[in-house]
């Protein structure tokens, strides 16, 4: 990198080419007052406070827009500059209510800081009250534009970084004001409520309502967001040991100062919610009643001890830490003697893990989130990234702004379509033919990366042969996508390198989910898009720690680190370490566990932090299965729909009340830090499991803290071999990280695939298990929404999030709606072969004709009563993304 030598205020400084004078000064610890500058934004040069004197340059160049040049001599703080700044600031402040003492931002306002630096105490110009609008009715934050200095930081961050363009400059001249189209509320303006504008605002114009009068924090602690798999780093602001605000953390590799509404505004309320479980509960005469820890633990240990190892199962949790998952599977395997351990990963990315492990040797995201921003082409298939992985979507936008091509494949018109160069809208469940059609075009037109295929892959010829069945005519017929679009997509993807491929549950939750994943892997290998920056096959994982729960072996077939339970050497290693003999037979998967419970083969389940009654397909079946059990233990922070069925409920501490680690979607192991004491008598899940294990005579559960558990994990899990809490103190580490001096692995398969050669797989088209027919003419597909998480156990405790969305909606295309005489807001019955649920109609072109869409956040419209349990043969994932339904208007409105 080019070094540049400059002098600022007589201090010699070495900068880099491309830096601005302001950045160089900041680096050297020299303060220049600024108002419109923001590190995440392109320079604006509007406020003119950052003026400097530069030898050989005329006038007073603004340091935020002036690049450094070798030999520059800069002055930042001459009396003349300060005088000019005072004048500028006076103009800014004359129409600013000059009553900082009573301002809610007092102490954090940049305007105050700047004024103090310039030495401005009183304003000579008369104060003009602008009579600008104030808005206090939107969730989470207030806007009082009388305090606005029109620096544009909010607008620019909303446009440049968030892509939401929810606010903008309106009017002009003296009437200029920040606002929305027609002054509509933010809720109707496409606002994501990410809070980025609030964080960027240098004044009190934008303030978070909940913390307005909370004053200044006395300490802050960095931790990992408990919601989704992006793994944003949050900075918890505490005052007298109470969390008063949650801010995005700036200096990290994951979210770099950005978060979504759930992380920003969705935490404090659930943590301190009055409905948190604060004491163990035992079911007596059909009623859950309060009990002591001793009572509850004794009951659990004595009851569980009664069952044969094949009669019990553990449902672990992707919400819990790595350490908790580790002790959970250890408890199951070493104490209960069973491999019947699984968790909700079965329902999300099991095909990814199964498929990619088979052809690449590792089932995880190959590249990093930040790396997506480097791509020249991004192909997004089966993920509504801006709703499900909001901060990952920001990297996509960044790449697009840099000129990357964006291809979206999705039957629904998702938010990102607005930014796409090409949008393909295939029929639901036809991804394999579509991807094979693209592959065929690439092969036919010789756009593939021949060198990569020959050197790094195998089985290409068999794959090539299987492409014969996928002529563009056939593919168009099956998918409904026009031929020229398929070939255009193939061209864009193959010729703009590096190309990154993102996918999520729209790919996996099918009875042919593994085939979908393999089709993606084929396409990436065909074009050599593996192993280099900006490329890759990138499954976006849903839950905060679903990657970690899999890594830790909360799966029926593997120990931690994907070491097969059926492998003799591996088993001996764990037997030696745990000092027990271990069960060699593979355990049951999640769906199989519920079936076995139904048939009374499984009699007791220990369930941690999951809510399968809402999250799993054919929910009625799941409920019956759980009711059939002789003994059900549930650990959770709230009395979830599932916990209500339990014989014993054990109150868990929330993520701010325990130490641990989460592994995010890009394999980055990051710290979760205890900042407050557990609420009531709740306890961390690792502690609870260890108590039960010890109570049942288990050895090796005497951990004093999660750090010790991590040491044991590192010892037995090669991919985590170099990870310990001391190292994590400095920031996350991406596995594989085999040794204490290894720096972690941002990109997989750079030289060789983990399994050696990448393997092409020939594929066939298999339609979805349940296709629409006369009785059930529509296809139902499901997903998540930005404002809630999963079954809503946490997010539905947050008032503002409920204001944004508080009921299950069924999205239906105007064509179908017309045919059924449905208008927006009608209450509908959605009926499948398995049951029916009520939901409110939202008539929208986002859904294609013939397809309706629902989320699964709301117990009142429990979507998974409808969904199909048809399984993918390899990964045993149910077909949550497609089932046949019929819609009727409900009579009672």
């Amino acid at each position: 990198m080019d070094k540049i030598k400059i002098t600022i205020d007589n201090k010699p400084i070495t900068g880099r080419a491309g830096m601005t004078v302001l950045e160089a000064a900041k680096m050297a610890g020299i303060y220049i007052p600024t108002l419109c500058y923001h590190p995440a934004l392109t320079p604006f040069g509007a406020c003119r406070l950052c003026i400097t004197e530069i030898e050989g340059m005329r006038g007073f160049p603004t340091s935020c827009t002036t690049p450094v040049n070798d030999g520059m001599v800069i002055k930042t703080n001459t009396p003349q500059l300060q005088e000019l700044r005072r004048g500028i600031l006076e103009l800014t402040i004359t129409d600013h209510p000059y009553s900082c003492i009573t301002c809610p931002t007092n102490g954090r306002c940049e305007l105050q800081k700047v004024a103090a630096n310039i030495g401005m105490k009183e304003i000579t110009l008369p104060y003009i009250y602008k009579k600008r609008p104030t808005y206090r009715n939107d969730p989470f934050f207030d806007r009082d534009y009388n305090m606005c200095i029109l620096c544009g930081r909010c607008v620019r961050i909303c446009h440049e970084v968030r892509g939401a363009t929810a606010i903008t400059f309106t009017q002009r001249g003296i009437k200029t004001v920040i606002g929305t189209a027609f002054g509509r509320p933010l809720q109707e303006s496409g606002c994501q409520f990410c809070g980025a504008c609030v964080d960027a605002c240098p004044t009190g114009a934008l303030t978070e309502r909940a913390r307005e009068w909370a004053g200044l924090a006395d300490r802050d602690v960095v931790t990992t967001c408990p919601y989704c798999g992006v793994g944003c780093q949050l900075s918890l602001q505490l005052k007298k040991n109470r969390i008063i605000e949650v801010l995005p953390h700036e200096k990290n590799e994951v979210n770099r100062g950005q978060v979504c509404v759930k992380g920003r505004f969705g935490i404090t309320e659930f943590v301190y919610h009055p409905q948190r479980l604060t004491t163990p509960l035992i079911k007596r005469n059909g009623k859950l009643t309060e009990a002591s820890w001793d009572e509850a633990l004794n009951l659990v240990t004595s009851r569980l001890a009664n069952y044969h190892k094949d009669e019990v199962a553990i449902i672990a949790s992707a919400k819990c830490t790595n350490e908790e998952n580790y002790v959970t599977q250890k408890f199951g395997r070493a104490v209960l003697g069973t491999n019947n351990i699984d968790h909700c990963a079965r329902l999300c990315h099991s095909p990814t893990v199964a498929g990619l492990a088979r052809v690449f040797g590792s089932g995880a995201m190959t590249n990093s989130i930040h790396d997506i921003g480097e791509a020249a082409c991004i192909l997004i298939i089966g993920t509504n990234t801006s709703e499900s992985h909001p901060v990952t979507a920001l990297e996509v936008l960044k790449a697009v702004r840099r000129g990357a091509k964006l291809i979206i494949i999705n039957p629904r018109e998702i938010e990102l379509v607005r930014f796409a160069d090409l949008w393909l809208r295939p029929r639901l469940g036809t991804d394999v033919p579509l991807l094979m059609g693209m592959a065929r075009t690439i092969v036919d037109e010789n756009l593939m990366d021949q060198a990569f295929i020959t050197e790094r892959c195998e089985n290409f010829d068999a794959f090539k042969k299987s492409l014969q069945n996928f002529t563009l005519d056939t593919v168009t017929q099956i998918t409904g996508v026009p031929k020229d679009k398929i070939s255009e997509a193939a061209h864009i993807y193959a010729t703009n390198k590096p190309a990154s491929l993102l996918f999520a549950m729209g790919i996996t939750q099918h009875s042919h989910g593994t085939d979908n994943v393999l089709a993606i892997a084929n396409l990436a290998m065909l074009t050599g898009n593996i192993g280099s920056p900006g490329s890759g096959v990138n499954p976006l994982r849903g839950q905060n720690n679903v990657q970690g729960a899999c890594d830790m072996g909360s799966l029926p077939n593997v120990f931690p680190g994907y070491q097969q339970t059926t492998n003799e050497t591996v088993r001996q290693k764990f037997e030696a370490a745990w000092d027990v003999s271990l069960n060699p037979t593979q355990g049951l998967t999640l769906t199989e566990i519920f079936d076995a419970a139904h048939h009374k083969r499984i009699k007791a389940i220990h369930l941690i932090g999951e809510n399968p009654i809402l999250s799993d397909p054919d929910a009625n079946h799941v409920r019956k299965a759980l009711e059939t059990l002789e003994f059900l233990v549930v650990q959770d922070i709230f009395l979830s729909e599932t916990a209500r069925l339990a014989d014993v409920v054990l109150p868990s501490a929330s993520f701010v009340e325990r130490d641990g680690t989460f592994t995010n979607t890009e394999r980055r192991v990051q710290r979760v830090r205890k900042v407050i004491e557990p609420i009531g008598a709740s306890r961390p899940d690792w502690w609870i499991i260890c108590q039960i294990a010890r109570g049942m005579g288990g050895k090796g559960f005497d951990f004093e803290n999660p750090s010790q558990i991590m040491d044991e994990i590192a010892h037995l899990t090669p991919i985590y071999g170099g990870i310990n809490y001391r190292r994590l103190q400095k920031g996350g580490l991406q596995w594989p990280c085999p040794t204490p001096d290894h720096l972690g692995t941002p990109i997989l398969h750079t030289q060789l695939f983990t399994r050696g050669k990448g393997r092409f797989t020939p594929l066939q088209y298999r339609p979805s298990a349940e296709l629409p027919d006369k009785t059930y003419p529509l296809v139902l597909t499901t997903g998540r929404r930005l404002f809630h998480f999963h079954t809503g156990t946490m997010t539905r405790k947050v008032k503002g999030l409920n204001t944004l969305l508080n009921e299950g909606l069924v999205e239906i295309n105007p064509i179908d709606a017309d045919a059924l005489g449905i208008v927006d807001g009608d209450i509908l019955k959605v009926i499948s072969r398995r049951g029916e649920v009520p939901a409110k109609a939202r008539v929208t072109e986002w859904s294609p004709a013939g397809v309706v869409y629902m989320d699964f956040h709301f117990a009142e419209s429990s979507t998974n009563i409808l969904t199909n349990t048809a399984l993918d043969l390899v990964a045993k994932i149910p077909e949550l993304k497609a089932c046949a339904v019929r819609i009727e208007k409900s009579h009672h409105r």
Partner: protein
Amino acid sequence: MSLHEQLALVLAPYRGEKGATIPALQAVQKALGYLPEEAISETAKSLCLSENEIYGVATFYAHFRFEKEGEHMVRICSGTACHVRGSPRIVETLEEKLGIHSGETTKDHKFSLERIACFGSCALAPVMVVDKTIYGRMTTTKARQILDEYQDTK
């Protein structure tokens, strides 16, 4: 033709052209005479931008209007010559008479009032233009009388 169809037709040449906000808005205003909410939202959709962005641009230029134009467009010149010769008083008078601010339209949609930059007939300053007719050497009385005439004819 419904408003929706009309907009689709007018916006067709601009589809997907993110940089075409101003020409697109001009075309819409030419076709409809003003920019109703639906026009903003359709323009946003066509250009793959948000309604807020379009609205921001539209409000920046005085040229764009958000209400249907009145039957008669009354324009008062605010160029230097006219200004010096008293056009502000004429604006005031008419604002008062019509009960609207300049840039607005009367409730009965009879008149819209606008200020314009130099009309190029400085010799006649102050100048008022109603629809396509130019009236020179305006006084407040004359301006009132002229509007009364327009009020009476239909």
